[in-house]
Structures are given as structure tokens and as C-alpha cells.
């Protein structure tokens, strides 16, 4: 069996230097609740940063790879996306 199959296991392989405040913000939580049945960000985000919790979107920014997919892929342009402060965020060691 291959190792590191789940996203949680994959994320353990990555070094993060998380800031205390998020660089990702859902602009209008109501849009996720009422207009977006697919909640497609919870599918395509490669780090599973977005998790739907019954009535709200939980944003686990600490594990973000800073790829930008959510900003581009959100069908309602409902994600405010910035870079983490200098030196914070993901730290790739190899690839």
C-alpha cells in the first residue's frame, strides 16, 4: 500500500509557518449558504482548506498552499485572497 494517501497525511509532509490571522476571507457567508449548493471550493482546493460545517464555511488557512485556485474557481468570486505576510505561510523545502 502507498503511504500518505489521505489529504491529512499529505499535509503532514508540509512545513507551514502559520500567521495568527487568515489571509483568506469568505466575503459574504450568506452566498455559500443560500446560492452555492455545490460548494465546489471544498472539492478542488488541493489542501482541503475549505470545509462546510452545516451552516458556515470553515477556512483552515493554516494549511493553504497559496495556489490561488479558490480565488479563481469560486463561482461567486466570494473569496478575498491575499498573500500571507512576508515569511509566513507555506515553506516548500524541496520541489
Amino acid at each position, binding site marked *: 500500500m502507498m503511504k500518505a494517501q489521505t489529504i491529512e497525511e499529505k499535509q503532514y509532509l508540509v512545513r507551514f*509557518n502559520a500567521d495568527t490571522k487568515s489571509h483568506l476571507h469568505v466575503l459574504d457567508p450568506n452566498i455559500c449558504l443560500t446560492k452555492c449548493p455545490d460548494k465546489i471550493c471544498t472539492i478542488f482546493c488541493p489542501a482541503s482548506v475549505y470545509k462546510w460545517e452545516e451552516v458556515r464555511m470553515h477556512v483552515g488557512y493554516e494549511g493553504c498552499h497559496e495556489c490561488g*485556485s479558490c480565488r479563481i*474557481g469560486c463561482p461567486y468570486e466570494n473569496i478575498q485572497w491575499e498573500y500571507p505576510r512576508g515569511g509566513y505561510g507555506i515553506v*516548500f523545502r524541496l520541489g
Partner: protein
Amino acid sequence: MPEKFDCIVVGAGPAGTACAYELAKAGVNVLLLERGEYPGAKNVMGGVLYRKMMEDIIPEFYKEAPLERPIVEQRFMMMDKESAVTFSYKGLEWGREPYNNFTVLRAKFDQWFAEKAVEQGALLVCETVAVECIVENGRVVGVRTDRPDGDIYADVVVLADGVNSLLAKQLGFHREWRPDEVALATMEILKLDKNIIEDRFNLEPNQGCTIEIFGDATKGILGTGFLYTNKDTLSIGVGTLLSGLIKHKIKPYELLEYVKNHPMIRPYIQGSEPVEYLAHLIPEGGYHSIPKVAGNGVLVVGDAAQLVNAIHREGSNMAMTSGRLAAETIIMAKAQNDFSESMLDQYRMKLMESFIGQDLKKYKDATHHFETFPQYFEQYIPMLNRAASQMFTVDGASKWEKQKKIWRDLGSTKQKFKLARDMMKAWKVMK
């Protein structure tokens, strides 16, 4: 730190560092800003670095740069569920000077390259985000950073801030990218003994192999998988247009697992230990998506300018050459003390005349074509596999009979015409 430089380069990837290196070498006072802890900390690529474009900047860099393996074989797999038709070229001329290309690990390589720019006299400042361009009277005059009192001024600013390119967007050089203009790639670095790598990929020490995987690697949606050999690791990944993931509701890391566990791939990576997981966007809009690349006091290079040839998985080379051409233009502009758009626009002309503009123009409709018509990946690759299986299986049927069976497998007359038309169309967008 003086508050004004001749030039500020935002982003210490291959494009930004190439630009800063060339400028510093020519005696231009250049600041290279990097938001990561070190250059490479935010950067990802499958791992192929092209010798020619790097050597245009640093001759014989391969004698000291941290490279993984020179590539001597490039394989292309047309993969179905449990079969693959593979095409390959292996040439030992690629294994000796002047080489063709190398695998690299970006965190190591980018640090080395930025260090070379520093040796030339560039000032590298890490852990600093350029949050916006400072615009005065319609011209870019500097950048606002996230440091206290963080405004820095320059005659010209080079935006090498990568695929997301927030600064070029802020200047109105492009709108937000569409999901079909970017590919989301996920990848893992897998640790594996170097002798095992060499045995499995049929390599001598200090030889490398790349494998591009089409078809079932992406479950038929437009994209590719890849498997590259490093010294004592493998890079395995898969990239698809973001629009494809959205349409098919596929989780990218599950697709990566699918590739890793595919019976055509698994034997290559068996027993390896994952040591890093990475995700990144690749700008794949091509020619039609190239934004405005020159304005008053500002130039855009590399991924930020969508300079990627997705068909040939070339990007780092275009990044470096665009950085070099931007530097050439700036040196000329400095000599005339004219940093206006009409002066700096010479960069765009140089870009379009170079292999970058030519190659992107050649494939300008390819990505869009293959995205619009999914049958190439969904139907024709499995069809090719069935044909090969039929032809090479010895079961007592005559070869004529086999050819007839393959012909029947192509479908009705109407379907055969469609296939012929699709092949013609594919030729048209690729030629």
C-alpha cells in the same frame, strides 16, 4: 536600504532572478523582493530546467548549480485503465555537455540562482510581500511592501510575482484568470534509493528520465501526469485545468492518489517514501491570455505574463528568457533615461520575436481545442490502446483479420469520418 533603486524586481523565481542577475551584472542598482522565507519557498514545478536558456544567463552553470539529473530519456505514455502505448526518445548526447535539460528541486535551485544574482550585486530581501504598485501620474514609481514604512521607489518595477500576478491585475493589465486559463497541479516528492531509481528507469548514475502521462492519468479530463527522476527522489504529479476539476468535481489529491496507484505507474514508485506534498497553479491560457506586459515604469515577466507552453511542459525556460529580455530593455531604457511605456514596449516586441512568442502562437488554440472536444482523451487514447493490444496479441487470427477488427472498433462510417475530422483538427491546432 536606500529608498530608491534603479529597479525593483518582485519575486525571486526563475524570471525575476534572471532579470535581477542581468541587471546587476550591467551595474544597475536592483532590489529583488521575495515573499518567502527564502527564494524557492513558495515555488513549485514538475522539475525540468532547460539548459540553453539558463546558459544564456550563466554559462556552464551545470558545473556548480544544484541539479538533480541530466535527462537522457523522455517518455510519453498514452495510458488506459490497464494498458499504455508508450513513445520514447533516449539519446546519450543529452547526457553530456552541453546537455539538453535537467531535473531540479526548486527550493534548492532557486536559492542558488538568487545567490548568484546577489554575487553580481543585486540586493535580495526575503520575507517581504509587495502588496501594491505605487502609481503616480499614470506611471509605476515603486511598490508598497508589508513592512513598516515599506514604500520603496524605483525607475522601473518588474513584476515576476508568479501565476497569481496580483500586481499586474491591480494595474489593470489583465482581468482575473478564468478557471480554464490555469491548471492546478499537485505533486509529491518520493524518496527512493538511487540504485533502485536507476534500475527501474534503466539509467546509469547521473542520467535521468522524464515520463509524461496522458489519458487515464487524468481520468480522461484534459491534463497530464508526470513522473521525473531526481537523484534519490522521484517527482510524481498530475495537473488538469481548474475548469476540468470543477466540471468533473474531482479532488486533486485523490487524482494524484489515482495516478500513484495506477497499475502502469505503481511499480515505478513502489516502496518509496513521500517526503513532501505540493500544489501550485500553472498559467495555461497560452497566447490569447498574455496580458499587457509593459506599461509606464513597469514590465511583467514569467508566469505572471502567462508564458508557459503547456504542450511541451516548458515554462522555466520562458521565465528566464523573459527576465533576460526585460533586463536588456531596462538597460537600454536607463541609457536613455526613458522608462515610458513606448520605450519599455520594446520588451514586448523582443518577447514576441523570440521562441516564446513564436511557440505560444503556434499552439494558441491547442488547449482550448482539446478542452472543448474531450473525445481525444476520453475515447481516442483507449482506442489506440485497444488497437495495439489487438495487433500485438498472437491468437491465431490473421493480421488482416486483426486489421479488420481494429477498423470495426473505430465505429460506424459516420464515427470514422468524425475521427478523421478530429485528427485533421488536432493537426491544425498543433502544426
